């Protein structure tokens, strides 16, 4: 039987790191060990200088389909994901129509399967149409395979509705993921509320608007016992709140986006909307706090909040341009360039920790051992490469890292045993 052989790399997973080759057959790892011999007709992937890890899992992407296929499709977003080393992505439900019914989530999942580049995991809405009024049918969506529920793009403003959502979720295999933003405090907001917005003459987005909802949902989790995941944390205060909640033993997890530990509000001084994002880029102190939160495990996962927007929309005046940045293809490179933590911790935050939060730990983020599903990422941790927007596979090129040098680049991605990225090139 022909197999795929990943040759010459170092295997790094939750059990440790060692020099080893990996043989894959029929979608599963069959052999791990030094000096495995290639058989006739074997598909050999060179991993010299690379680490071989469980595939990455992104808890937070916007694939825009259905509704905004001019910005991204499930296929183009899946390709960007595979190139970034992701074998599974959680697709946010702010599509048109929203992912609040079995029909829509099944469509998204099927489009992902058709693209065949990574597993697309549709998130469900917490409320119907993300309107914050009526709970979405959680059980029906869980039956359809949904594990992550969120109104991302909007926070659930009504504290009673959020309490009910948590209580109702208790018997179901699901996690509630909150976009933490008290909307009344951010009306019209364009960027972080502080020195820069004062000088630039634009309305500010106060850190408090995030922290109030982080605090509220931690306390609701304490009250109800529900699992809660906090999306794209951006402030030092949020990190402190989550750290305290974890010390109290609450079932709270959190993620941070690469741009929130790499960039600050200062980027907006040229009024370039590529740097407009929600929650906004904040201060150096917040960046340092997010890094510290990732270093000590307060923040469980690195999630991109990949948010494609067409160029003409990002060229609108700053106050009118939509917030968001693409991130799938740059996440690893930003993380390795910016974070001063052991490589294994970066991989944990990109792979097995988010896999557990997304409810896919049976098939993603697995240890690399015989019998395990072969969803793997092979990357060169030392590769320095410049970000060229035109080279991105995403249909939109709104990266804030254009022209920067990143460190660490994906060489191969193996999804369900198949090399979907080889030597940095997507195979479909």
């Amino acid at each position, binding site marked *: 039987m022909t197999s795929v052989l990943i040759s010459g790399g170092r295997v790094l997973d939750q059990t440790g790191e060692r020099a080893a080759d990996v043989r894959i057959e029929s979608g599963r790892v069959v052999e791990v060990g030094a000096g495995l011999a290639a058989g006739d007709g074997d598909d050999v992937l060179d991993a010299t200088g690379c680490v071989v890890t469980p595939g990455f899992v992104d808890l937070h992407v916007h694939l825009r389909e259905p509704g905004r296929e001019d910005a991204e499709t499930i296929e183009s977003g899946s390709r960007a994901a595979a190139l970034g080393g992701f074998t599974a992505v959680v697709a946010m439900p702010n599509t048109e129509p929203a992912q609040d019914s079995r029909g829509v989530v099944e469509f998204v999942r099927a489009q992902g399967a058709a693209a065949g580049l990574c597993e697309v995991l549709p998130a469900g809405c917490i409320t119907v149409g993300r309107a914050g009024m009526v709970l979405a049918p959680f059980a029906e969506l869980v039956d359809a395979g949904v594990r992550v529920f969120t109104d991302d793009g909007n926070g659930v403003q009504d504290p009673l509705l959020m309490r009910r959502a948590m209580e109702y979720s208790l018997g179901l295999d699901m996690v509630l993921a909150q976009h933490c933003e008290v909307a009344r405090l951010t009306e019209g907001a364009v960027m972080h509320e502080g020195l820069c917005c004062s000088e630039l003459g634009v309305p500010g987005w106060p850190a408090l608007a995030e922290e109030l909802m982080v605090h509220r949902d931690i306390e609701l989790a304490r009250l109800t016992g529900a699992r809660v995941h906090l999306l794209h944390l951006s402030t030092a205060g949020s990190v402190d709140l989550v750290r305290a909640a974890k010390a109290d033993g609450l079932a709270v997890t959190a993620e941070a986006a690469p741009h929130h530990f790499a960039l600050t509000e200062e980027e907006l001084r040229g*009024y370039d909307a590529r740097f407009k994002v929600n929650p906004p880029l904040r201060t150096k102190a917040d960046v340092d706090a997010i890094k510290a939160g990732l270093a000590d495990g307060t923040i469980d996962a690195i999630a991109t909040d990949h948010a494609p927007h067409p160029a003409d929309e990002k060229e609108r005046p700053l106050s009118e341009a939509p917030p968001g940045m693409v991130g799938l293809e740059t996440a690893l490179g930003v993380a390795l360039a910016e974070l001063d933590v052991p490589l294994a911790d970066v991989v944990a935050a990109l792979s097995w920790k988010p896999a557990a939060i997304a409810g896919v730990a049976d098939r993603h983020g697995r240890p690399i051992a015989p019998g395990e599903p072969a969803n793997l990422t092979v990357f060169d941790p030392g590769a320095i490469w410049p970000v060229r927007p035109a080279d991105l596979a995403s249909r939109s090129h709104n990266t804030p890292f254009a022209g920067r040098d990143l460190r660490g680049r994906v060489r191969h991605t193996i999804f369900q045993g198949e090399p979907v990225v080889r030597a940095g090139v997507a195979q479909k």
Partner: protein
Amino acid sequence: MKHLRSIAEIGPDAVVRLLDLTDHMAEINRRNNPRVPALRGKTICNLFFEDSTRTRLSFETAAKRLSADVMTFTVGTSSVNKGESLRDTIETVAAMGVDAFVIRHPASGVPWQVSRWTTASIINGGDGWHAHPTQALLDAYTVRQALGRTGGLDGVRIAVVGDIKHSRVARSDVEVFQALGADVTLVAPATLLPPVAPAPATDRLDDVIDKIDVLYLLRMQRERMHEALVPSLREYSTRFALTPERARRLPDHALVMHPGPMNRGVEMMVDPAELPGAVIAQQVTNGVAVRMAVLFDLLAGAGSAPDLTAEERP
């Protein structure tokens, strides 16, 4: 100098140079035929995405007195809704051959975005809450002239009163006054200050009114009432308007300024015609000369000695 987008961007030396050049322009404006050929052959496009009759007329007048060709394009928000993007608008007009754009836009930062899409000079005619540098220059010029100063404004005590947070005039005026060495105090409730104020602030006008050389009143917009920024216009006036009582406490030499249009009965509760220190009409007059200086500096080349003696012949 390629652009005039903000005072902060050009720095104090350029400010003094422009104010000195304004003296020359003011001299031209006093002639019987206030027109020189300095910018003949140059094309200036006034691109106004927000209605502003006085700023537009002032720029048009300035350009014509320097013999430049002027196009004025007032873009209603409806045109934007028809689908043409800001970039397409700029690139279309620029393709007609434009040396400088004067841009007024309700969104902060548009002059910076536009300067990425054209090689023409950009003059900020007011962007959102952010900046209005020609207003700042004409205000600085008016203070310098009225107080008989040359050079800067070292030690001049200026109170800027009102809605600082939402005011491009306030941001640019504070920058220009501070660049020239003035001692600026902001007077406003905390709701009408930006999160980080650019100068020391107080909410007690009565504590500063007798210790200033310039009282600069900002326009108080009525829509601020709906945003819980002040309880009522009446309460605002009680605390922050120039009332007859406060006018009596102003030092005799103190100037009273306002960028217009004035809300009589809100921030201005006296008739400025009866205030000996009011220089509001001079601000408007000086606006033309300042804008001539800016256009000349940008389009005739920085550092070139201004030959402004020749009269335009018919």
